[in-house]
């Protein structure tokens, strides 16, 4: 144990930021919400951001941004925005990524958040500092050049995003394949597809969006999906479809699923009619794939749906049904992995499969002063959810100081209920579903915690 608070275990100096300052890692949607809400609750805030700008994933100039030229929100405005700072009501229902970035910039300016952000600073380690639950946060200029600095904080909010580290599947023969293989995160512009024979792998939102662009631009486009999905058009009955879902959200899930199947069977037909696999789940049980154009493109013959990829050969790709195709560009829309290189895995409750186990997907199970914001995949927008996550964390920190006994009770309750299912339905245990939450269920849990952490003035 270090005998002085001024030096850490390997004798580097530690700058103590006092008993009231919280560290936020990242200045994307989640980090900005954390800075604003902690500040509003009277905390000092230092936010570290490895890029030189705010916006995270939505700033497509950022080298790790997964956005491509045509990305639009696939969740409509009312839940994508922060509930106490709406987007302009004359914006489109599904704004373009550049719109959404300008919204985040306005948020940062409106609430004067930029002075709290240290740009170009990457957090390289977060370690428990003392029994009080404080943390030593070590930073370095991005690129890990130069010296490191360590500051001590009351608490840490990790808001580093989970859509930047590509999940690359290991497929037999990939190394000997002569065509080009990229991950969806490297895809930026439809010009990259023009004149090529393109195979898009992955049936999630990104995979479908890129498949549609390939259908328009490429000489030949295949779309390989392993599992069947329900496709939700962007509009139903003239309204954004997530808003239609919200209108009936109070109905029992079974009834909504029946309704969904009826309505979409009439409007577009079931995926199976387009030669796509039959979904192994019911509608709204998993994160919806919102896409109005994919089935049209398949119907036009611009996209050929194909099954799972079995192995690569030098010039061909062999599919699970034994047939072969000859793409010269393969885009792997196979998702992203959560990564917390600066945290010891036990802090996030991660096992060997790298899957974090947090209370309500947000609070470190053994460390009440450590939270992760935005590590969820809701069937609605993220802005809403991450706002309340961070408000609750701020309230929680206040409650711990004001009424430790009550805080302890809340903590016990959270632990006792940690196994609760937060997604709409029972999901297949694949990484794609790790962070799925049904917005209504999740908000109910957040509401309860919000009420429990109220500190009387």
């Amino acid at each position, binding site marked *: 144990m270090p005998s002085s608070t001024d030096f850490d275990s390997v004798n580097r100096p530690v700058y103590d930021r006092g008993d009231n300052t919280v560290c936020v890692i990242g200045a994307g949607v989640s980090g900005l919400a954390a800075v604003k809400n902690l500040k509003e609750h009277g905390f000092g805030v230092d936010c570290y951001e490895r890029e030189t700008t705010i916006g995270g994933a939505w700033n497509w100039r950022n080298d790790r941004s997964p956005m491509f030229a045509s990305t639009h929100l696939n969740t409509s405005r009312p839940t994508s925005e922060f509930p106490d700072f709406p987007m302009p009501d004359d914006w489109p229902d599904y704004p373009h990524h550049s719109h959404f970035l300008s919204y985040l910039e306005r948020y940062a300016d409106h609430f004067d958040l930029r002075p709290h952000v240290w740009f170009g600073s990457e957090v390289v380690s977060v370690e428990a500092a003392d029994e009080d639950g404080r943390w030593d946060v070590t930073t370095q200029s991005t690129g890990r050049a130069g010296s490191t600095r360590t500051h001590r904080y009351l608490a840490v909010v990790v808001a580093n995003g989970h859509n930047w580290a590509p999940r690359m599947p290991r497929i037999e023969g990939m190394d000997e394949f002569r065509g080009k293989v990229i991950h969806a995160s490297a895809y930026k512009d439809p010009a990259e597809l023009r004149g090529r024979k393109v195979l898009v792998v992955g049936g999630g939102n990104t995979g479908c969006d890129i498949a549609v662009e390939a259908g328009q631009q490429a000489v030949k486009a295949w779309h390989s999906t392993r599992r069947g999905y329900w496709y939700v058009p962007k509009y139903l009955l003239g309204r954004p479809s997530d808003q239609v879902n919200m209108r009936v959200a109070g109905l029992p899930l079974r009834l909504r699923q029946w309704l969904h199947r009826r309505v979409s069977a009439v409007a577009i037909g079931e995926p199976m009619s387009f030669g796509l696999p039959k979904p192994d789940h019911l509608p709204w049980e998993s994160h919806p794939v919102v896409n109005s154009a994919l089935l049209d493109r398949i119907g036009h013959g611009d996209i050929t749906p194909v099954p799972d990829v079995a192995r690569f050969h030098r010039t061909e790709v062999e599919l699970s049904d034994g047939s072969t195709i000859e793409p010269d560009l393969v885009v792997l829309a196979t998702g992203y992995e959560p990564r917390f290189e600066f945290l010891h895995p036990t802090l996030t409750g991660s096992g060997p499969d790298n899957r974090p186990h947090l209370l309500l997907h947000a609070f470190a199970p053994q460390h009440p002063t450590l939270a992760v914001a935005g590590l969820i995949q809701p069937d609605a927008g993220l802005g809403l959810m991450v706002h309340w996550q961070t408000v609750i964390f701020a309230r929680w920190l206040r409650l711990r100081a004001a009424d430790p006994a009550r805080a302890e009770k809340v903590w016990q309750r959270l632990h006792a209920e940690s196994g609760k299912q937060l997604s709409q339905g029972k999901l297949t245990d694949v990484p794609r579903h790790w962070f799925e939450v049904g917005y*209504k269920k999740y908000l109910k849990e957040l509401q309860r915690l919000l009420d429990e952490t109220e500190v009387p003035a």
Partner: protein
Amino acid sequence: MRIDRSADWANPVPPVRREVLSATPEADEGRPPLLFVPGYGHGAWLFAEHWLEHAAGRGFPAHAVSLRGHGRSGTAPGTGLRAYVHDVVQVAAGLPRQAVLVGHGAGALVVSHALARYAAKAAVLVSPVLGGWGTLGMALRRNPVGTIPALAGAPLRVGRRQLFGRELPDEQARAYASRVRFTSRRAQFQLITHRAPEPPAGDPPVLVVGSQQDGIVSQAALTRAARRYGSAPLLFPGMGHDLMLDTRWREPIDAIVDWLEKD
């Protein structure tokens, strides 16, 4: 605070064109902008008479919005309290910095609801008509002729002498009163039937300003309003309901700016 507002999200308020009148200080001193919200029947002009320029003169960017159906703002079907709240929140969030919301009359009711949807820097409720049965009782006592037909759905008529203090010349009072017109019957009923506002987002400080001689809001109502936000009302004896049009309009706006400067 109820965080699941599915019904609200499923049915967004339609956009309209909104009239916003502004006065800006010569040099930007980093002060928070003020957004003035007139009560029902009034437009943004109410604040353009004196208060906007005066606030700007004291270094605060000042804006006033006309709620939909008022002044030069557009109209939309189904207008009521929710749409008015939406208008205020939209304009506030469009300002470059976190704003102070200043609501007058029923505009204070709109502001008290808007505070739950927008994290304001602070709020000021001027001669607040927060509705409920108390407001109705007072209206019936002071102005039975204008109020009883309103209960049957006719536009509420407010007496000139309820709005202005004795010092304002009759002719001027008549001219102002002629600009007051009522628009939404639904909003009028919601003065009585609306639910209590949800707690403000971010817990901003709230100041209540008024006068004992207000012909629409009783002193007891002012005290009650202030108590809801944990303070006491700031009173300007001898003035009418429309403080900003009174001959002594300077006193309340100076007091409001002083209060803001203190923080």
